[in-house]
Protein backbone atom coordinates (compact mmCIF):
# COMPACT_ATOMS: atom_id res chain seq x y z
CA UNK A 1 0.00 0.00 0.00
CA UNK A 2 1.44 3.36 -0.94
CA UNK A 3 1.71 6.14 1.61
CA UNK A 4 -0.31 8.48 -0.62
CA UNK A 5 -3.42 6.39 -0.06
CA UNK A 6 -3.52 7.58 3.55
CA UNK A 7 -5.56 10.78 3.82
CA UNK A 8 -6.95 13.03 6.50
CA UNK A 9 -6.20 14.02 10.07
CA UNK A 10 -7.85 11.79 12.69
CA UNK A 11 -8.11 12.56 16.40
CA UNK A 12 -9.07 10.23 19.23
CA UNK A 13 -12.01 11.79 21.09
CA UNK A 14 -11.41 10.43 24.57
CA UNK A 15 -14.46 10.26 26.80
CA UNK A 16 -14.71 8.83 30.30
CA UNK A 17 -18.12 8.32 31.95
CA UNK A 18 -19.76 9.94 28.94
CA UNK A 19 -17.77 13.15 29.40
CA UNK A 20 -15.33 14.33 26.73
CA UNK A 21 -11.83 15.12 27.96
CA UNK A 22 -10.52 18.63 27.26
CA UNK A 23 -7.68 17.22 25.20
CA UNK A 24 -10.20 15.64 22.81
CA UNK A 25 -11.28 19.14 21.79
CA UNK A 26 -7.72 20.49 21.81
CA UNK A 27 -6.68 17.79 19.33
CA UNK A 28 -9.45 18.85 16.95
CA UNK A 29 -8.25 22.47 17.22
CA UNK A 30 -4.69 21.48 16.32
CA UNK A 31 -5.94 18.99 13.75
CA UNK A 32 -7.75 21.81 11.91
CA UNK A 33 -4.48 23.71 11.48
CA UNK A 34 -2.64 20.64 10.22
CA UNK A 35 -5.51 19.72 7.90
CA UNK A 36 -5.51 23.22 6.43
CA UNK A 37 -1.80 22.92 5.58
CA UNK A 38 -2.44 19.53 3.98
CA UNK A 39 -5.65 20.51 2.17
CA UNK A 40 -7.66 17.85 3.99
CA UNK A 41 -10.12 17.66 6.89
CA UNK A 42 -10.44 16.47 10.47
CA UNK A 43 -12.22 13.33 11.65
CA UNK A 44 -12.77 12.68 15.36
CA UNK A 45 -12.93 9.03 16.43
CA UNK A 46 -15.38 8.56 19.30
CA UNK A 47 -15.20 5.21 21.10
CA UNK A 48 -17.44 4.07 23.94
CA UNK A 49 -20.87 2.77 24.89
CA UNK A 50 -23.96 4.98 24.24
CA UNK A 51 -21.76 7.94 23.35
CA UNK A 52 -23.19 8.92 19.96
CA UNK A 53 -24.83 12.04 21.40
CA UNK A 54 -21.36 13.49 22.12
CA UNK A 55 -20.66 13.71 18.39
CA UNK A 56 -22.31 17.12 17.99
CA UNK A 57 -19.98 18.62 20.56
CA UNK A 58 -17.02 17.37 18.53
CA UNK A 59 -18.53 18.96 15.42
CA UNK A 60 -19.05 22.24 17.28
CA UNK A 61 -15.36 22.30 18.13
CA UNK A 62 -14.42 21.76 14.51
CA UNK A 63 -14.58 18.05 13.60
CA UNK A 64 -15.64 17.73 9.94
CA UNK A 65 -16.63 14.10 10.48
CA UNK A 66 -17.12 11.90 13.53
CA UNK A 67 -16.55 8.15 13.36
CA UNK A 68 -18.45 6.49 16.21
CA UNK A 69 -17.57 3.02 17.48
CA UNK A 70 -20.30 2.21 19.99
CA UNK A 71 -20.49 -1.10 21.85
CA UNK A 72 -21.28 -2.20 25.42
CA UNK A 73 -17.81 -3.79 25.58
CA UNK A 74 -16.39 -0.27 25.32
CA UNK A 75 -18.19 1.14 28.37
CA UNK A 76 -15.16 1.44 30.66
CA UNK A 77 -11.70 1.78 29.16
CA UNK A 78 -9.84 -1.47 28.67
CA UNK A 79 -6.78 -1.70 26.44
CA UNK A 80 -7.79 -4.56 24.17
CA UNK A 81 -11.32 -3.66 23.03
CA UNK A 82 -10.32 0.01 22.59
CA UNK A 83 -7.22 -1.08 20.64
CA UNK A 84 -9.38 -3.33 18.46
CA UNK A 85 -11.74 -0.41 17.83
CA UNK A 86 -9.07 2.16 16.95
CA UNK A 87 -7.02 -0.32 14.92
CA UNK A 88 -10.18 -1.20 12.98
CA UNK A 89 -10.82 2.48 12.23
CA UNK A 90 -7.23 3.06 11.07
CA UNK A 91 -7.22 0.00 8.82
CA UNK A 92 -10.62 0.88 7.34
CA UNK A 93 -10.26 4.65 6.83
CA UNK A 94 -6.46 5.00 6.46
CA UNK A 95 -5.69 8.41 7.98
CA UNK A 96 -2.31 10.02 7.28
CA UNK A 97 -2.20 11.44 10.82
CA UNK A 98 -3.64 9.94 14.02
CA UNK A 99 -3.51 12.09 17.16
CA UNK A 100 -4.23 10.78 20.66
CA UNK A 101 -4.18 12.70 23.96
CA UNK A 102 -1.19 11.89 26.17
CA UNK A 103 -3.43 10.94 29.10
CA UNK A 104 -3.14 7.81 31.24
CA UNK A 105 -5.51 6.23 28.70
CA UNK A 106 -3.91 7.64 25.54
CA UNK A 107 -0.42 6.59 26.59
CA UNK A 108 -1.73 3.03 26.92
CA UNK A 109 -3.86 2.95 23.78
CA UNK A 110 -1.33 4.77 21.54
CA UNK A 111 1.61 2.37 21.86
CA UNK A 112 -0.62 -0.70 21.57
CA UNK A 113 -2.33 0.52 18.40
CA UNK A 114 0.84 1.88 16.77
CA UNK A 115 2.58 -1.47 17.27
CA UNK A 116 -0.46 -3.30 15.91
CA UNK A 117 -0.64 -1.25 12.71
CA UNK A 118 3.16 -1.14 12.53
CA UNK A 119 3.88 2.54 12.51
CA UNK A 120 5.87 5.01 14.59
CA UNK A 121 4.49 6.83 17.60
CA UNK A 122 5.93 9.99 19.12
CA UNK A 123 5.05 10.43 22.80
CA UNK A 124 3.79 13.44 24.68
CA UNK A 125 4.22 16.05 21.94
CA UNK A 126 4.02 19.75 22.75
CA UNK A 127 4.17 21.07 19.18
CA UNK A 128 3.03 19.71 15.82
CA UNK A 129 3.53 21.18 12.37
CA UNK A 130 3.65 20.21 8.73
CA UNK A 131 7.06 20.48 7.05
CA UNK A 132 9.65 18.72 4.95
CA UNK A 133 12.02 16.00 6.12
CA UNK A 134 15.00 15.81 6.50
CA UNK A 135 15.04 19.44 7.58
CA UNK A 136 18.30 20.54 5.98
CA UNK A 137 18.43 18.23 2.96
CA UNK A 138 18.34 19.62 -0.61
CA UNK A 139 14.73 20.09 -1.68
CA UNK A 140 14.73 17.21 -4.16
CA UNK A 141 15.86 14.86 -1.37
CA UNK A 142 13.15 15.95 1.04
CA UNK A 143 9.80 14.29 1.66
CA UNK A 144 7.10 16.94 1.57
CA UNK A 145 4.18 17.52 3.94
CA UNK A 146 5.45 15.42 6.81
CA UNK A 147 4.15 15.69 10.36
CA UNK A 148 6.99 17.16 12.46
CA UNK A 149 6.40 16.25 16.08
CA UNK A 150 8.23 18.14 18.82
CA UNK A 151 8.54 16.88 22.36
CA UNK A 152 10.62 17.46 25.46
CA UNK A 153 12.88 14.63 26.54
CA UNK A 154 15.48 13.83 29.17
CA UNK A 155 13.52 15.38 32.00
CA UNK A 156 12.78 18.56 30.09
CA UNK A 157 16.47 19.28 29.47
CA UNK A 158 16.15 18.92 25.72
CA UNK A 159 13.65 19.16 22.97
CA UNK A 160 13.53 16.84 19.96
CA UNK A 161 11.63 17.02 16.68
CA UNK A 162 10.63 13.64 15.25
CA UNK A 163 9.28 12.59 11.85
CA UNK A 164 7.75 9.33 10.66
CA UNK A 165 8.55 9.49 6.93
CA UNK A 166 7.99 5.91 5.74
CA UNK A 167 5.02 4.60 7.73
CA UNK A 168 1.38 5.62 7.99
CA UNK A 169 -0.44 6.87 9.87
CA UNK A 170 1.98 9.29 11.50
CA UNK A 171 0.96 8.91 15.13
CA UNK A 172 1.51 11.17 18.13
CA UNK A 173 0.26 11.41 21.65
CA UNK A 174 -0.19 15.08 22.54
CA UNK A 175 0.22 16.59 25.96
CA UNK A 176 -3.08 17.87 27.40
CA UNK A 177 -3.34 21.62 27.96
CA UNK A 178 -0.88 22.61 25.23
CA UNK A 179 -2.96 22.82 22.03
CA UNK A 180 -5.76 25.35 21.73
CA UNK A 181 -9.43 24.52 21.16
CA UNK A 182 -11.43 26.26 18.42
CA UNK A 183 -14.19 28.68 19.38
CA UNK A 184 -17.27 26.45 19.33
CA UNK A 185 -19.90 26.87 16.61
CA UNK A 186 -23.00 26.09 18.66
CA UNK A 187 -25.19 25.26 15.68
CA UNK A 188 -22.88 22.67 14.10
CA UNK A 189 -24.22 19.14 13.71
CA UNK A 190 -21.96 16.14 13.35
CA UNK A 191 -21.47 14.22 10.12
CA UNK A 192 -21.56 10.81 11.80
CA UNK A 193 -20.04 7.66 10.34
CA UNK A 194 -20.93 4.61 12.42
CA UNK A 195 -18.27 1.92 12.34
CA UNK A 196 -18.73 -1.57 13.66
CA UNK A 197 -15.36 -2.82 14.87
CA UNK A 198 -14.46 -6.47 15.33
CA UNK A 199 -14.46 -6.78 19.12
CA UNK A 200 -13.93 -10.53 19.36
CA UNK A 201 -12.87 -11.45 22.89
CA UNK A 202 -9.40 -12.97 23.19
CA UNK A 203 -6.75 -13.72 25.81
CA UNK A 204 -5.93 -10.00 26.03
CA UNK A 205 -9.33 -9.05 27.45
CA UNK A 206 -8.90 -8.20 31.13
CA UNK A 207 -11.68 -8.31 33.69
CA UNK A 208 -12.56 -5.16 35.64
CA UNK A 209 -13.08 -6.26 39.25
CA UNK A 210 -13.60 -2.82 40.72
CA UNK A 211 -13.42 0.89 39.90
CA UNK A 212 -12.55 3.33 42.67
CA UNK A 213 -12.96 7.01 41.85
CA UNK A 214 -11.01 9.55 43.83
CA UNK A 215 -13.27 11.21 46.35
CA UNK A 216 -13.53 14.87 47.19
CA UNK A 217 -14.16 17.88 45.03
CA UNK A 218 -12.37 17.53 41.76
CA UNK A 219 -10.53 20.68 40.80
CA UNK A 220 -9.13 20.84 37.30
CA UNK A 221 -6.05 23.04 37.45
CA UNK A 222 -5.72 22.76 33.67
CA UNK A 223 -8.93 24.75 33.21
CA UNK A 224 -8.02 27.55 35.65
CA UNK A 225 -7.36 31.05 34.32
CA UNK A 226 -5.38 32.04 37.41
CA UNK A 227 -3.26 29.59 39.40
CA UNK A 228 -1.80 30.32 42.81
CA UNK A 229 0.88 27.68 43.01
CA UNK A 230 2.95 26.84 46.07
CA UNK A 231 6.18 24.95 46.60
CA UNK A 232 8.33 23.65 49.41
CA UNK A 233 8.95 27.25 50.54
CA UNK A 234 5.35 27.53 51.75
CA UNK A 235 6.57 25.44 54.66
CA UNK A 236 3.54 23.41 55.74
CA UNK A 237 0.11 22.16 54.73
CA UNK A 238 -1.45 24.69 57.14
CA UNK A 239 0.38 27.59 55.54
CA UNK A 240 -1.33 26.87 52.21
CA UNK A 241 -4.23 28.83 53.80
CA UNK A 242 -2.36 31.97 52.70
CA UNK A 243 -2.48 30.75 49.07
CA UNK A 244 -6.13 29.72 49.34
CA UNK A 245 -7.05 33.18 50.64
CA UNK A 246 -5.22 34.83 47.75
CA UNK A 247 -6.85 32.44 45.26
CA UNK A 248 -10.31 33.20 46.70
CA UNK A 249 -9.71 36.93 46.52
CA UNK A 250 -8.43 36.97 42.93
CA UNK A 251 -10.71 34.21 41.59
CA UNK A 252 -8.00 31.63 41.11
CA UNK A 253 -7.22 28.02 41.97
CA UNK A 254 -4.47 26.59 44.17
CA UNK A 255 -1.89 24.27 42.60
CA UNK A 256 1.54 23.10 43.69
CA UNK A 257 4.96 21.65 42.89
CA UNK A 258 6.02 18.04 43.30
CA UNK A 259 7.69 18.65 46.68
CA UNK A 260 4.31 19.63 48.12
CA UNK A 261 2.74 16.36 46.96
CA UNK A 262 5.71 14.34 48.18
CA UNK A 263 5.30 15.98 51.62
CA UNK A 264 1.63 15.05 51.65
CA UNK A 265 0.49 18.70 51.88
CA UNK A 266 -1.74 18.59 48.78
CA UNK A 267 -3.09 15.80 46.52
CA UNK A 268 -1.35 14.82 43.30
CA UNK A 269 -4.10 16.13 41.00
CA UNK A 270 -3.00 19.67 41.93
CA UNK A 271 0.62 19.06 40.88
CA UNK A 272 2.11 21.08 38.03
CA UNK A 273 5.14 19.81 36.14
CA UNK A 274 6.75 16.99 34.21
CA UNK A 275 5.20 14.28 36.41
CA UNK A 276 2.08 16.34 37.10
CA UNK A 277 0.01 18.49 34.78
CA UNK A 278 0.90 21.03 32.13
CA UNK A 279 -0.90 24.31 32.65
CA UNK A 280 -1.09 27.56 30.69
CA UNK A 281 -3.22 29.97 32.71
CA UNK A 282 -3.41 33.71 32.12
CA UNK A 283 -1.57 34.27 35.40
CA UNK A 284 0.64 31.82 37.27
CA UNK A 285 1.79 32.76 40.77
CA UNK A 286 4.86 30.69 41.72
CA UNK A 287 5.11 31.06 45.48
CA UNK A 288 7.97 29.46 47.36
CA UNK A 289 8.73 27.39 44.26
CA UNK A 290 12.43 27.12 43.44
CA UNK A 291 11.74 26.37 39.77
CA UNK A 292 13.29 22.97 39.08
CA UNK A 293 13.36 22.23 35.35
CA UNK A 294 10.68 19.54 35.79
CA UNK A 295 8.32 22.11 37.30
CA UNK A 296 9.09 24.80 34.74
CA UNK A 297 8.30 22.32 31.92
CA UNK A 298 4.70 22.25 33.18
CA UNK A 299 4.05 26.00 33.53
CA UNK A 300 6.38 28.03 31.31
CA UNK A 301 3.67 28.57 28.67
CA UNK A 302 1.62 30.61 31.14
CA UNK A 303 0.86 34.12 29.85
CA UNK A 304 2.14 35.95 32.92
CA UNK A 305 4.37 34.36 35.56
CA UNK A 306 4.71 36.11 38.91
CA UNK A 307 7.27 34.54 41.26
CA UNK A 308 7.67 35.22 44.96
CA UNK A 309 10.69 33.63 46.61
CA UNK A 310 13.02 34.64 49.38
CA UNK A 311 16.04 33.16 47.56
CA UNK A 312 17.09 35.62 44.88
CA UNK A 313 19.14 32.92 43.11
CA UNK A 314 16.09 30.62 42.68
CA UNK A 315 15.86 29.48 39.04
CA UNK A 316 12.14 30.39 38.97
CA UNK A 317 13.24 34.01 38.47
CA UNK A 318 14.76 33.00 35.13
CA UNK A 319 11.30 32.24 33.71
CA UNK A 320 9.22 34.75 35.69
CA UNK A 321 7.90 37.89 33.99
CA UNK A 322 7.78 39.56 37.39
CA UNK A 323 9.98 38.30 40.20
CA UNK A 324 9.67 39.46 43.78
CA UNK A 325 12.43 38.59 46.23
CA UNK A 326 10.77 38.52 49.62
CA UNK A 327 8.93 36.72 52.41
CA UNK A 328 5.70 35.14 51.21
CA UNK A 329 4.34 35.16 54.78
CA UNK A 330 4.43 38.95 54.79
CA UNK A 331 3.56 39.62 51.15
CA UNK A 332 0.62 37.23 50.63
CA UNK A 333 -1.73 38.48 53.39
CA UNK A 334 -1.13 42.10 52.36
CA UNK A 335 -1.63 41.25 48.67
CA UNK A 336 -4.89 39.43 49.46
CA UNK A 337 -6.15 42.47 51.39
CA UNK A 338 -5.11 44.86 48.60
CA UNK A 339 -7.03 42.82 46.01
CA UNK A 340 -10.11 42.62 48.24
CA UNK A 341 -9.95 46.37 48.85
CA UNK A 342 -9.72 47.18 45.16
CA UNK A 343 -12.59 44.82 44.30
CA UNK A 344 -14.72 46.38 47.05
CA UNK A 345 -14.16 49.82 45.49
CA UNK A 346 -15.10 48.70 42.00
Amino acid at each position, binding site marked *: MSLEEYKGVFTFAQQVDHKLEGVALELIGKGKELAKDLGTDVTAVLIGSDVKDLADTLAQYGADHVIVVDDPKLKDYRTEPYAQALTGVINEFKPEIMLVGATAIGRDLGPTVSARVKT*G*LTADCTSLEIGNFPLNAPEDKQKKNQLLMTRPAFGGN*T*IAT*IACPDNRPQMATVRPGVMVKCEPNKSAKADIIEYKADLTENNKYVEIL*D*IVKEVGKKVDIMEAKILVSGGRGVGSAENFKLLEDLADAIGGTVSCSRAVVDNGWLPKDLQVGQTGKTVRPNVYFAIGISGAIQHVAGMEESDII*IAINKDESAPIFEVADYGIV*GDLNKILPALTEAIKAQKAEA
Partner: protein
Amino acid sequence: MKIVVCVKQVPDTKNGVVFNPDGTLNRGAMDKVMNPDDKAGLEVALQIKEKTGAEITVVTMGIPDADAVLREAFAMGADKGVLITDRVLGGADTWATSSTIAAGIRNLDYDLIITGRQAIDGDTAQVGPQIGEHLGIPVISYAADVQVEGDSVIVQRQYDDRTHKLKAKMPALVTCLAEEITPRYMTPGGIFDAFDKEVTVWGRNDLKDLDDGDIGLAGSPTKIAKASDKVRKGAGETVNLDPTESVKYIMDKLNEKHVI
Protein backbone atom coordinates in the same frame (compact mmCIF):
# COMPACT_ATOMS: atom_id res chain seq x y z
CA MET B 1 6.48 -19.43 38.36
CA LYS B 2 8.84 -17.45 36.15
CA ILE B 3 9.00 -13.68 36.00
CA VAL B 4 10.90 -11.59 33.46
CA VAL B 5 11.71 -8.03 34.54
CA CYS B 6 12.85 -5.56 31.88
CA VAL B 7 15.19 -2.86 33.14
CA LYS B 8 16.97 0.00 31.42
CA GLN B 9 20.17 1.71 32.33
CA VAL B 10 19.49 5.42 31.94
CA PRO B 11 21.58 8.55 32.03
CA ASP B 12 21.14 10.48 35.23
CA THR B 13 19.54 13.59 33.76
CA LYS B 14 20.24 15.60 36.91
CA ASN B 15 23.69 16.41 35.55
CA GLY B 16 22.60 17.49 32.06
CA VAL B 17 22.77 15.64 28.77
CA VAL B 18 25.34 15.16 26.00
CA PHE B 19 24.52 14.55 22.32
CA ASN B 20 26.21 12.83 19.43
CA PRO B 21 26.46 14.90 16.23
CA ASP B 22 23.53 12.93 14.71
CA GLY B 23 21.18 14.09 17.45
CA THR B 24 21.11 10.81 19.36
CA LEU B 25 22.13 10.66 22.99
CA ASN B 26 25.76 10.18 23.95
CA ARG B 27 25.05 7.72 26.75
CA GLY B 28 28.74 7.00 27.34
CA ALA B 29 29.37 10.56 28.51
CA MET B 30 26.84 10.56 31.36
CA ASP B 31 26.41 8.98 34.81
CA LYS B 32 24.09 5.98 34.75
CA VAL B 33 21.42 4.58 37.05
CA MET B 34 18.72 1.90 36.96
CA ASN B 35 15.56 3.55 35.67
CA PRO B 36 13.31 4.30 38.70
CA ASP B 37 10.08 2.77 37.33
CA ASP B 38 12.01 -0.38 36.36
CA LYS B 39 13.42 -0.61 39.87
CA ALA B 40 9.85 -0.44 41.19
CA GLY B 41 8.98 -3.26 38.77
CA LEU B 42 11.87 -5.35 40.10
CA GLU B 43 10.63 -4.73 43.65
CA VAL B 44 7.17 -6.04 42.68
CA ALA B 45 8.82 -9.17 41.23
CA LEU B 46 10.88 -9.67 44.39
CA GLN B 47 7.75 -9.44 46.55
CA ILE B 48 6.06 -12.07 44.38
CA LYS B 49 9.20 -14.20 44.66
CA GLU B 50 9.00 -14.02 48.46
CA LYS B 51 5.42 -15.34 48.38
CA THR B 52 5.65 -17.92 45.58
CA GLY B 53 9.31 -18.77 45.14
CA ALA B 54 9.22 -17.37 41.60
CA GLU B 55 12.39 -17.23 39.57
CA ILE B 56 13.30 -13.76 38.33
CA THR B 57 15.20 -13.14 35.11
CA VAL B 58 16.20 -9.55 34.46
CA VAL B 59 16.55 -8.51 30.82
CA THR B 60 18.21 -5.36 29.55
CA MET B 61 19.15 -4.02 26.14
CA GLY B 62 22.01 -1.58 25.78
CA ILE B 63 25.72 -1.11 25.41
CA PRO B 64 28.04 -3.75 27.00
CA ASP B 65 28.40 -1.52 30.09
CA ALA B 66 24.68 -2.05 30.80
CA ASP B 67 25.91 -5.24 32.49
CA ALA B 68 26.16 -3.02 35.60
CA VAL B 69 22.39 -2.62 35.83
CA LEU B 70 21.99 -6.42 35.88
CA ARG B 71 24.56 -6.67 38.70
CA GLU B 72 22.51 -4.16 40.67
CA ALA B 73 19.39 -6.29 40.06
CA PHE B 74 21.29 -9.38 41.30
CA ALA B 75 22.27 -7.49 44.44
CA MET B 76 18.59 -6.74 45.07
CA GLY B 77 17.68 -10.42 44.64
CA ALA B 78 17.18 -11.25 40.96
CA ASP B 79 18.22 -14.78 39.90
CA LYS B 80 19.32 -14.52 36.27
CA GLY B 81 20.35 -11.77 33.91
CA VAL B 82 20.29 -11.33 30.14
CA LEU B 83 22.06 -8.54 28.30
CA ILE B 84 20.97 -7.94 24.71
CA THR B 85 23.73 -6.00 23.02
CA ASP B 86 24.83 -5.57 19.43
CA ARG B 87 25.94 -2.62 17.35
CA VAL B 88 23.19 -3.28 14.80
CA LEU B 89 20.58 -2.73 17.52
CA GLY B 90 21.71 0.83 18.32
CA GLY B 91 19.66 3.96 17.68
CA ALA B 92 16.39 2.05 18.01
CA ASP B 93 13.08 3.85 18.60
CA THR B 94 10.31 2.27 20.68
CA TRP B 95 9.08 0.07 17.80
CA ALA B 96 12.55 -1.37 17.13
CA THR B 97 13.42 -1.61 20.83
CA SER B 98 10.21 -3.43 21.71
CA SER B 99 10.58 -5.76 18.69
CA THR B 100 14.11 -6.63 19.81
CA ILE B 101 13.32 -7.17 23.49
CA ALA B 102 10.22 -9.22 22.61
CA ALA B 103 12.44 -11.46 20.46
CA GLY B 104 14.81 -11.90 23.41
CA ILE B 105 11.95 -12.77 25.76
CA ARG B 106 10.72 -15.43 23.28
CA ASN B 107 13.90 -17.32 24.17
CA LEU B 108 12.78 -17.47 27.82
CA ASP B 109 9.96 -19.16 29.78
CA TYR B 110 7.70 -16.64 31.48
CA ASP B 111 4.38 -16.32 33.27
CA LEU B 112 4.65 -12.64 34.02
CA ILE B 113 6.66 -9.83 32.42
CA ILE B 114 7.18 -6.67 34.44
CA THR B 115 8.54 -3.39 33.07
CA GLY B 116 8.62 0.16 34.36
CA ARG B 117 5.95 2.56 33.08
CA GLN B 118 8.52 4.76 31.38
CA ALA B 119 12.21 5.59 31.37
CA ILE B 120 13.42 8.97 32.59
CA ASP B 121 15.49 9.59 29.44
CA GLY B 122 12.82 9.16 26.78
CA ASP B 123 9.67 9.46 28.94
CA THR B 124 7.65 7.64 26.25
CA ALA B 125 5.92 4.86 28.26
CA GLN B 126 5.71 2.95 24.96
CA VAL B 127 8.20 0.08 25.11
CA GLY B 128 6.38 -1.94 27.81
CA PRO B 129 2.97 -2.03 26.10
CA GLN B 130 4.63 -2.63 22.72
CA ILE B 131 6.57 -5.66 24.02
CA GLY B 132 3.23 -7.09 25.17
CA GLU B 133 1.70 -6.34 21.80
CA HIS B 134 4.52 -8.14 19.94
CA LEU B 135 4.12 -11.17 22.23
CA GLY B 136 0.32 -11.21 21.95
CA ILE B 137 -0.33 -11.11 25.70
CA PRO B 138 -2.52 -8.83 27.86
CA VAL B 139 -0.90 -5.60 29.05
CA ILE B 140 -1.81 -3.63 32.15
CA SER B 141 0.13 -0.37 32.36
CA TYR B 142 0.46 2.19 35.21
CA ALA B 143 0.34 -0.45 37.97
CA ALA B 144 0.33 0.75 41.58
CA ASP B 145 -0.05 -2.76 43.04
CA VAL B 146 0.42 -6.25 41.58
CA GLN B 147 -0.68 -9.55 43.14
CA VAL B 148 -0.57 -13.07 41.71
CA GLU B 149 -3.60 -15.31 42.30
CA GLY B 150 -3.50 -18.77 40.73
CA ASP B 151 -3.06 -18.38 37.00
CA SER B 152 -4.04 -14.69 37.05
CA VAL B 153 -2.52 -11.37 37.99
CA ILE B 154 -4.58 -8.77 39.88
CA VAL B 155 -3.45 -5.19 39.32
CA GLN B 156 -4.44 -1.77 40.66
CA ARG B 157 -4.23 0.32 37.49
CA GLN B 158 -4.06 4.09 37.96
CA TYR B 159 -5.86 6.63 35.79
CA ASP B 160 -6.04 10.40 36.20
CA ASP B 161 -9.00 10.38 38.59
CA ARG B 162 -9.57 6.71 39.42
CA THR B 163 -8.12 3.28 39.92
CA HIS B 164 -9.28 0.14 38.13
CA LYS B 165 -8.73 -3.22 39.79
CA LEU B 166 -8.03 -5.51 36.85
CA LYS B 167 -7.60 -9.25 36.47
CA ALA B 168 -5.62 -10.71 33.57
CA LYS B 169 -4.84 -14.33 32.76
CA MET B 170 -1.11 -15.01 32.65
CA PRO B 171 1.10 -14.85 30.70
CA ALA B 172 0.65 -11.10 30.96
CA LEU B 173 2.74 -7.93 31.02
CA VAL B 174 2.48 -5.22 33.69
CA THR B 175 4.17 -1.79 33.76
CA CYS B 176 4.88 -0.31 37.22
CA LEU B 177 4.91 3.17 38.78
CA ALA B 178 7.84 4.32 40.92
CA GLU B 179 5.59 6.77 42.81
CA GLU B 180 3.60 3.91 44.28
CA ILE B 181 6.24 1.25 44.91
CA THR B 182 9.40 1.79 46.99
CA PRO B 183 12.26 -0.51 45.99
CA ARG B 184 14.47 -2.24 48.53
CA TYR B 185 18.17 -1.57 48.91
CA MET B 186 20.85 -3.94 47.71
CA THR B 187 22.04 -6.27 50.49
CA PRO B 188 25.76 -6.60 51.35
CA GLY B 189 25.60 -10.35 50.65
CA GLY B 190 23.75 -9.63 47.43
CA ILE B 191 26.39 -7.17 46.29
CA PHE B 192 29.06 -9.77 47.02
CA ASP B 193 27.23 -12.47 45.03
CA ALA B 194 26.28 -10.11 42.23
CA PHE B 195 29.74 -10.11 40.75
CA ASP B 196 30.05 -13.90 40.72
CA LYS B 197 26.83 -14.48 38.85
CA GLU B 198 26.94 -15.09 35.15
CA VAL B 199 25.15 -12.76 32.76
CA THR B 200 23.84 -14.29 29.54
CA VAL B 201 24.80 -12.07 26.60
CA TRP B 202 22.81 -12.22 23.37
CA GLY B 203 23.66 -10.52 20.12
CA ARG B 204 21.56 -10.11 16.98
CA ASN B 205 22.06 -13.73 15.92
CA ASP B 206 20.65 -15.09 19.18
CA LEU B 207 17.32 -13.39 18.52
CA LYS B 208 14.83 -15.45 16.51
CA ASP B 209 11.71 -14.37 14.63
CA LEU B 210 13.13 -10.88 14.28
CA ASP B 211 13.22 -9.19 10.89
CA ASP B 212 16.29 -7.11 10.01
CA GLY B 213 13.86 -4.39 8.97
CA ASP B 214 12.62 -4.06 12.54
CA ILE B 215 15.87 -3.39 14.40
CA GLY B 216 18.22 -0.53 15.11
CA LEU B 217 18.17 2.96 13.67
CA ALA B 218 17.28 1.71 10.18
CA GLY B 219 14.34 -0.33 11.48
CA SER B 220 12.87 2.58 13.44
CA PRO B 221 9.76 4.18 11.89
CA THR B 222 10.40 7.43 13.78
CA LYS B 223 13.45 9.51 12.85
CA ILE B 224 14.97 12.41 14.74
CA ALA B 225 14.73 15.58 12.65
CA LYS B 226 16.61 17.63 15.21
CA ALA B 227 17.46 17.66 18.89
CA SER B 228 18.69 20.54 20.94
CA ASP B 229 18.85 22.10 24.34
CA LYS B 230 15.57 23.66 25.18
CA VAL B 231 15.30 27.36 24.41
CA ARG B 232 13.46 29.11 27.19
CA LYS B 233 11.86 32.48 27.26
CA GLY B 234 14.16 34.96 28.98
CA ALA B 235 13.77 36.26 32.48
CA GLY B 236 11.56 39.29 33.05
CA GLU B 237 12.36 41.72 35.82
CA THR B 238 13.10 40.83 39.41
CA VAL B 239 12.67 43.29 42.25
CA ASN B 240 13.82 43.24 45.85
CA LEU B 241 11.55 45.56 47.86
CA ASP B 242 10.02 45.68 51.31
CA PRO B 243 6.68 43.82 51.68
CA THR B 244 4.49 46.93 51.25
CA GLU B 245 6.34 48.01 48.12
CA SER B 246 6.26 44.42 46.84
CA VAL B 247 2.47 44.32 47.14
CA LYS B 248 2.17 47.67 45.37
CA TYR B 249 4.45 46.36 42.59
CA ILE B 250 2.32 43.24 42.09
CA MET B 251 -0.94 45.25 42.18
CA ASP B 252 0.42 47.65 39.53
CA LYS B 253 1.31 44.75 37.26
CA LEU B 254 -2.06 43.02 37.79
CA ASN B 255 -3.89 46.27 36.95
CA GLU B 256 -1.63 47.01 33.98
CA LYS B 257 -2.46 43.57 32.55
CA HIS B 258 -6.17 43.89 33.42
CA VAL B 259 -6.10 40.81 35.61
CA ILE B 260 -8.21 42.55 38.25
